[in-house]
């Protein structure tokens, strides 16, 4: 019997569209006004960019397998946002330098995660959770109550405002970013090796993949991408605070799961994560529109991930 199957990324995209259409039925939804609906869809898409970029790093470490995950992503987002905010302080010519620093600082933290996971054999979950605490500590030291800074006009222009044909710059950045991620995963040796170590580290090693190096690279890259995420987030919000990045963490993992990337590694795509990020952003903004408190948001997100893991995350039975 051949079962009818649709790929998870497509399923996620369909789910996003259905959710969006349903959101129009809410009392304060867009109703039958097409212009408002398009404006709202654009806005949702724009908001999905930040989660989407942060979830990109998450996708890489999850694909790398061995229970790979990055729980430090949320605090890295905050740290790089604060660094960007302070360094740029309203000047356009400092933006590139700040972006570079955001990427490097993220990469260093990711590298340390990689060292802990690869050489000290600490479970990725525990290592990155611990690292999250360390980075939060760093943030508190740097922040010292409050920081003074300002985002540059060019960042607001590129990230938060419409760029061409009314399409916000963030969406264009995401499209380019998505293409690069696709190239990285599907068209490079790095991508091929990443999937290989995700499926089975021993066979990957025997086939000549440098597992140690790949693992370090995956975590470093994930850190750098979280850093990039923080740079984008601050460009959008224009303000920083200590809890800026943390709300992105759980959705970033859920977005990867919605997109059909196996949480046990070795299988997945960034397209899926992009669709997942849209779904998660939609759910969050729906709950906000319905004026649900933070507690309900957490319960819904937690329940969603449990449900997804039940669908995609079954391990093989003991009886063979």
């Amino acid at each position, binding site marked *: 019997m051949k079962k009818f199957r649709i790929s998870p990324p497509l399923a996620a995209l369909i789910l996003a569209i259905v959710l969006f259409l349903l959101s129009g039925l809410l009392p304060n939804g867009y109703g039958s006004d097409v212009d408002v609906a398009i404006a709202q869809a654009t806005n949702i898409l724009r908001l999905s960019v930040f989660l989407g970029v942060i979830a990109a790093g998450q996708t890489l470490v999850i694909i790398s397998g061995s229970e790979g995950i990055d729980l430090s992503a949320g605090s890295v987002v905050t740290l790089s946002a604060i660094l960007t905010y302070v360094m740029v302080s309203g000047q356009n010519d400092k933006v590139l330098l700040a972006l570079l620093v955001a990427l490097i600082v993220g990469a260093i933290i990711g590298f340390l995660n990689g060292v802990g996971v690869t050489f000290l*054999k600490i479970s990725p979950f525990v290592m990155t959770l*611990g690292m999250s*605490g*360390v980075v*939060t500590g760093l943030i508190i030291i740097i922040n010292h109550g409050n920081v003074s800074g300002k985002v540059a006009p060019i960042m607001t222009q590129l990230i938060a405002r419409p760029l061409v044909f009314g399409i916000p710059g963030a969406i264009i950045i995401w499209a380019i970013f998505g293409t690069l991620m696709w190239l990285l995963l599907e068209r490079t040796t790095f991508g091929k090796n990443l999937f290989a170590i995700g499926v089975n580290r021993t066979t990957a090693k025997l086939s000549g993949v440098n597992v140690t190096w790949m693992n370090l690279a995956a975590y470093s890259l994930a850190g750098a991408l979280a850093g990039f995420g923080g740079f984008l987030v601050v460009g959008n919000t224009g303000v920083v605070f200590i809890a800026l990045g943390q709300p992105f963490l759980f959705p970033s993992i859920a977005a990867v799961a919605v997109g059909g990337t196996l949480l046990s590694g070795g299988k997945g795509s960034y397209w899926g994560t992009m669709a997942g990020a849209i779904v998660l952003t939609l759910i969050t903004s729906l709950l906000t529109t319905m004026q649900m408190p*933070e507690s309900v948001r957490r319960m819904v997100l*937690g329940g969603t991930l449990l449900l997804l*893991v039940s669908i995609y995350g079954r391990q093989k039975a*003991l009886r063979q």
Partner: protein
Amino acid sequence: MRRSPWESWLAKYPALFAMIFLVIAISVNLILQPNLFEGDTLNSNMRVFLPMIILAVGQAVVILSGGIDISVGGIVSIVNAILATRVGLEGSPEKMWQFVFISILVGVGAGALNGFFISVLRLQPIITTYASGFLFAGIALFILPQPGGGIPSDISALYRTTRPLGLPLAFYIIGVLLLAWWYIRSSRYGRFIYAVGGKAEAAYETAVPVTLVQFSTYVISGLMAALSGIAITMLVGSGNAEIGSQMTLNSITAVVIGGTAMSGGIGGVVGPIIGAITLGLIQNIISFANIDTWWTTFVNASIIVAALAAPGLVSLFGRRRS
């Protein structure tokens, strides 16, 4: 499967590493707090350490059987929220014990939910309990949106000042936990836990009821998390739905420095108890060392990461030498 030098060393002396850590922590603490072993100081320290000790024991049982429970902090928060909102500062003792009982049921139920997903549906423990922990934290916040509420102060005092025969209450509870563990360990069920943690497939083939054993460890962990939640509520006397959020990582750290291998099947409960006490002493040292307030989070977290890294470092250098 070949064991690393660290693991075979641990298999022989599970709690030794924790003991070394403990002796160092006590020594440093004694310098900063010379009256550490006097009755009052001992009691006030032990009552603060007890919630983490209980939590670490539950975590250790799950990790021994090859799993992990990230949701314990969420369960602690739910219990705290229930007690603080339902009993209240003016509540009667009967009401308190009634809700203590309900809290235990909630903990067992939450553990059973984890156990069902992991053992019956065969989902990955880490991600499942991470998701359920997020769900539990949401429920706690739903019950108690803002910090507040509490339990009657005389019940709180019962926990804080009871000292049968002049020894802290915590010693007796640790004694009960150790007795229970000693009994479990020598039973068939105890051997099953080690067998499942060692290699679940092999255990299955030798007729160990793997599903049931895995399920039961999460129920135990849920129960211990509830007891930990009750203890911490009696300690602080008030409610805060975020109270458990920092406890999960510490419970895992206590298990790791207690010499119980994260891969399962090696170690016990004694090490994690010592690990939890050591972590508590480290907190003490930090607060006595007059560290700039802005630095405390960083120092705390760095010590946790260093503690998590220690077994790996020992193993790494062990390999180099051999």
